[in-house]
């Protein structure tokens, strides 16, 4: 087909004469036969069917009345008490009553429309969205008039200073959001752990003795004293949570500088994922892998918690630990790097 046959006009309707772009208009296209003839329904043809439909609609509305009444009854008849099953009964029966109340109206109305209201489709003209030429001319005239009367185009000084003012006026609105939160400062770099802090069980807060940690066992750990904090308990916990695992020392691959960070095969790693901060709470005892249940980042406990799978990039930070005179596990210091998800300045 030659380029010439590309459409200049979309349809035979003069009102819709626009560029048709790449549309092809076949000169011998099939002609629209027009609306198909209307088919009458049984309810239009027979009084019996019409009356039956009317009864059905009314019956549906009556069902609705019954449903709403039942819902009110259920509200009082099935109160909620200390027994947990009562919540279920109240929710179920109240809900089913309201459901009937709604369905009766809805299905009744639609049934009414479909069986008893006229079902002949009608056609209505559409008008082009764009205004007629006169309307458009008048609109342009108004804009020009407004421009000349205000001098918007003519008075450059006013216009440009207005732009400047409009650009700057939202600035205070942005500034006043500054007090939404403090400057993070170095809070992301430090946790509650410091030299001598005992490792305690989460959530009881009882300190852990090295002798309690049997081979292959895993402890969810918080710093001792966390539960007694007046403020910021969750904020501190969100940074300081630690997992404690005891492995056969022969299984541990420790670098020279970290040799002293573990105690007799007991290692402590930050529980906060270096991906987006979920707790890395799943420990696979056989493989010594730690798995984050949120995005499946997997860390190898035997090898400095390096990432072996999943979207995380950095190993979990290790907490250097040792034991005190009474045999309790204590931290040698804070973590040596920021815990949790990455951030720009870290």
């Amino acid at each position, binding site marked *: 087909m030659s380029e010439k046959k590309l459409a200049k006009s979309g349809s035979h309707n003069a009102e819709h004469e626009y560029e048709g772009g790449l549309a092809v208009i076949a000169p011998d296209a099939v002609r629209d036969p027009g609306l198909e003839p209307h088919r009458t329904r049984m309810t239009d043809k027979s009084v019996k069917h019409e009356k039956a439909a009317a009864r059905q609609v009314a019956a549906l509305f009556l069902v609705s009345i019954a449903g709403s009444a039942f819902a009110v009854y259920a509200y009082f008849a099935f109160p909620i008490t200390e027994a947990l099953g009562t919540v279920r009964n109240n929710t179920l029966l109240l809900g089913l009553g309201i459901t009937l109340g709604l369905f009766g109206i809805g299905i009744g109305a639609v049934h009414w429309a479909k069986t008893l209201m006229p079902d002949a489709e009608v056609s209505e003209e559409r008008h082009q969205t764009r205004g007629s030429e006169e309307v458009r001319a008048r609109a342009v005239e108004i804009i020009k008039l407004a421009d000349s009367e205000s001098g918007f185009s003519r008075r450059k000084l006013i216009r440009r200073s207005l732009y400047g003012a409009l650009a700057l006026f939202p600035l205070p609105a942005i500034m006043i959001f500054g007090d939404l*939160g403090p400057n993070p400062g170095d809070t992301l770099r430090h946790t509650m752990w410091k030299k001598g802090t005992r490792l305690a069980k989460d959530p009881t807060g009882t300190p852990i003795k090295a002798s309690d940690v049997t081979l292959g066992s895993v402890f969810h750990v918080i710093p001792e004293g966390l539960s007694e904090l007046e403020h910021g308990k969750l904020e501190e916990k969100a940074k300081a949570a630690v997992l404690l695992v005891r492995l056969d020392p022969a299984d541990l691959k420790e670098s020279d500088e970290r040799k002293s960070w573990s105690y007799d095969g007991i290692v402590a790693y930050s529980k906060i994922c270096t991906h987006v901060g979920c*707790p890395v709470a799943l420990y696979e005892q056989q493989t010594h892998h730690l798995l984050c249940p949120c995005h499946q980042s997997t860390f190898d406990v035997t090898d400095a918690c390096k990432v072996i799978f999943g979207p995380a990039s950095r190993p979990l930070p290790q907490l250097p630990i040792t034991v005190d005179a009474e045999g309790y596990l204590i931290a040698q210091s804070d973590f040596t790097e920021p815990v949790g998800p990455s951030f720009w300045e870290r």
Partner: protein
Amino acid sequence: MSNAVAAPKKGGFLAGTANYLDERVGVAGILKEFGRKVFPDHWSFMLGEVALYSFLVLLLSGTFLTFFFQPSMEPVIYNGVYGPLKGAEMSIAYASTLDISFEVRGGLLMRQVHHWSALLFVAAAGLHMLRVFFTGAFRKPREINWVVGFVLFVLGMAGGFTGYSLPDDLLSGNGLRIIDGMIKGIPVIGAYTSSLLFGGEFPGEAIVARLYGLHILLVPALILVFIVIHLFMVVIHKHTHYSGPGRKDSNVVGYPLMPVYVAKAGGFFFIVFGVIMLIAATFTINPVWNYGGYDPSPVSAGTQPDWYIGWLDGALRLAPSHLEVHVGGVTWAWNILLPMIVGVGFLVVVAAYPFIEAWVTGDKREHHVLDRPRNAPTRTAIGAAGVTFYAVLWAGAGTDLIATNFKMSLNQVLTSMQILLFVAPIAAYIIAKRTCLSLQRKDREIALHGRESGRIVRLPHGEYIEVHEPLDEFEQWKLVDFKDYQPTLARPNAAGKITLRARLRAGLSRFYFEDRIAPVTQTEIDAAHHHGDHDAVEAAEVKAVEA
């Protein structure tokens, strides 16, 4: 005028009220203009209605919940009726959510109505978008309304996420933790933005109240405003209709607003509300009492966000390991940035699609008759590829559940998803396009030769033929009424130069329209009928012989 004022109060209360309203707000003129406005009827037009009605249900049930919910993260010791959590320390927000569930009659029902209708709102809006996409309803003059609808979809996700986080339970708290991690990964401003949002360190005591403000005020107000704009434009454009006899770009065929459409649409609101109520009464959703209050240390396996956030969570999971880069003392967390860029990029392409297609076709006409998806094969194939891309990301959020339920290796499931993310959309594109073209060929065949009747007839000379039943002109019209586009060549501009823009456009138009099936013309039908008459004559002869 004086006549109207002096009009006697005939007709009783109703007429009196009507007269009162007309003289004050001009209700007669409004009714005259809109009372018999025609709305086309099709089941797929109800998807947008479902979204609208779910939103109304959200407003109703949400208002009820605000009377009982307390958006405070102040810690309290729980002393309500739910035994397993008695004595536990939790936030007031979580405790009041438990109270709504266990101490307010109908409270749990309303919570479940609210949550289910939120899921339905986003689902219906998404399906409505797909309907609009695959039928080409976004074409001129409706491009802007597509963008408005797109904004509504995004606002729906925002409303859903802010609401999901309010109960301050373990599951939603971990969701916020993920958001915090993502925000921190943004270059330069990450840590500051997180601190501003949470009022200090995560989780802080501010975020629930802040999200509450957004969730009950800003987001629903914006949704309402955009719904008004959306529907206002529907009134301006009038609704599209499917191709059919008598349906043209210059008319609208359907039922009048009053009474048929009012009854159908009004009734449908009650049906949608009823379905939500039935689901809420019989199916538990978000049993926050099982999760416990938020604590940064524990987490349960198999955690899932609400369905509409799944694709973003999937994007996070599918990022490969070790993408993070440290240069010059700063951190580029590409394992977080890349999924965010993919997510935002996908949404931008969705929002911009109508403008891209309009540019490629160069079609400036108004379109009010919808395309059957098969008649726009390339668009349908692009849509199929987009849906598949989204679906793989979405399935990516369930890698752990897929692995555990189907007893597969988690690592292999995830790696397969990473491969599928690239391969599956291409496969979907090819399959959808070929399917469309085949369906078009079948339509051509039926339009020209009629429907196969399954009746085999033996002719006198021994030949067997199957008798084809001709279509009536109304059925035939549905098969031939579509526009056909032809790829263009890059042409030089006035200066005699073929610009890069022209080349790109020609390339895209070739991509779109290289494979095309032209609609059947009258000439072809006449030729086929001539042939058909020949068959009919022979068939008549057969009958004569049999007799």
